[in-house]
């Protein structure tokens, strides 16, 4: 037979472990989020126009276009441009409704083109759909006024992917913060309730000690005669009832003056059924919870057992 204190400690540390586990997850998510998001974007690889499913940067002189616009209810929400880069190449770039990048014909003209400084763009490499590529081909053929580009050669000049500057991993960071906050909150709730439980348990043991019952209980607890009711989270020793649910209760049978099944806890109706124990000190405890409808032979057995023990104690 296990020792009582060991068992109490075990029940507690189980809870703490879960709390600490959640706390570690929260911190890990937070760290990953910070590392990914703020990992300075400058360490991202340079976009080559052919890569997708990762974050890239690009040194851009100016945008040309747009060659395609995405609309929602008639208003433009996203635009696709060709972008002239410091590699003297064109890549494809997706922007929002407006963009901070210089646009040829607006911010950049024939006059100031030699003075223009490159700007770094950041985004997510994404495959260009072929329906959209048709607009690209059409756009540039109009600029050149001849059928130079086609669906079979545009990739050589512009690549097969575009840099989506709307996605700069910020959403992921925000999602990371939210997840971290959820796990952090769970950890906090568990650890706080655990602390409250620990205090409740410590108070109970302290009081038993003060009343001179603790040694007595420990002795009884180490004997083989302790009856376990696992489904009800309850144990019965020669002179005590020990219940671990809904919270720790240890009561000596000799102190109990009334025992009855109850659907109420302190005046509030429950869908669980409990055994209520009233003591001569005018205290009321609720032990052995079972769902109201479920048949649980142990419940009736324990109820009878406590009743008979209380009778014995009273005699």
């Amino acid at each position: 037979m296990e020792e009582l204190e060991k068992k109490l400690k075990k029940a507690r540390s189980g809870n703490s472990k879960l709390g600490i586990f959640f706390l570690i997850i929260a911190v890990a998510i937070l760290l990953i989020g910070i590392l990914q998001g703020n990992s300075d974007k400058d360490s991202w690889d340079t976009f080559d126009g052919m890569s997708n499913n990762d974050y890239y940067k690009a040194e851009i002189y100016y945008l040309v276009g747009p060659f395609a616009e995405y609309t929602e209810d008639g208003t433009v929400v996203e635009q696709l441009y060709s972008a002239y880069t410091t590699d003297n190449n064109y890549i494809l770039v997706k922007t929002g409704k407006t963009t901070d990048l210089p646009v040829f014909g607006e911010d950049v003209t024939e006059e100031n083109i030699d003075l223009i400084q490159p700007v770094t763009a950041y985004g997510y490499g994404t495959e260009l759909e072929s329906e959209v590529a048709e607009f690209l081909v059409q756009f540039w053929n109009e600029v050149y006024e001849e059928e130079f580009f086609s669906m079979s050669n545009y990739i050589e000049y512009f690549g097969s992917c575009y840099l989506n500057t709307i996605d700069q991993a910020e959403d992921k960071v925000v999602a990371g913060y939210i997840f971290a906050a959820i796990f952090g909150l769970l950890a906090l709730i568990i650890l706080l309730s655990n602390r409250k439980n620990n205090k409740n348990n410590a108070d109970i043991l302290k009081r038993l000690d003060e009343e001179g019952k603790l040694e007595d209980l420990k002795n009884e607890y180490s004997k083989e005669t302790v009856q376990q009711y696992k489904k009800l989270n309850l144990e019965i020793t020669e002179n005590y009832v020990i219940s671990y649910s809904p919270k720790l209760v240890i009561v000596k049978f000799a102190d109990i003056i009334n025992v009855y099944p109850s659907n109420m806890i302190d005046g509030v109706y429950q869908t669980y059924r409990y055994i209520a124990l009233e003591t001569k000190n005018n205290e009321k405890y609720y032990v052995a919870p079972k769902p109201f409808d479920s048949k649980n032979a142990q419940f009736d057995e324990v109820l009878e057992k406590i009743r008979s023990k209380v009778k014995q104690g009273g005699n």
Partner: protein
Amino acid sequence: MVIVYGWKTNIKKEKHLGKKHCTNCSHDEDMFLAKEIFKLHIFGIPIFWKTKRRFVMCSNCGVVEELNKADYTERLKEL
């Protein structure tokens, strides 16, 4: 879209029977005729409910005596 749904069990006290001695908990307590109602709700709007049981309820220990629908209705009508 998040669909907010859930269920809960409510107690509806329908008639005060006065203070009486409870045979279950041996207290002298207020007794009621009460119904336990199971409610399923989506977005806070109950879409299904069912009376699970009818009983004489002691305000200290809860259910004392379960009644069938006929007996319950009869006792509800009594003065």
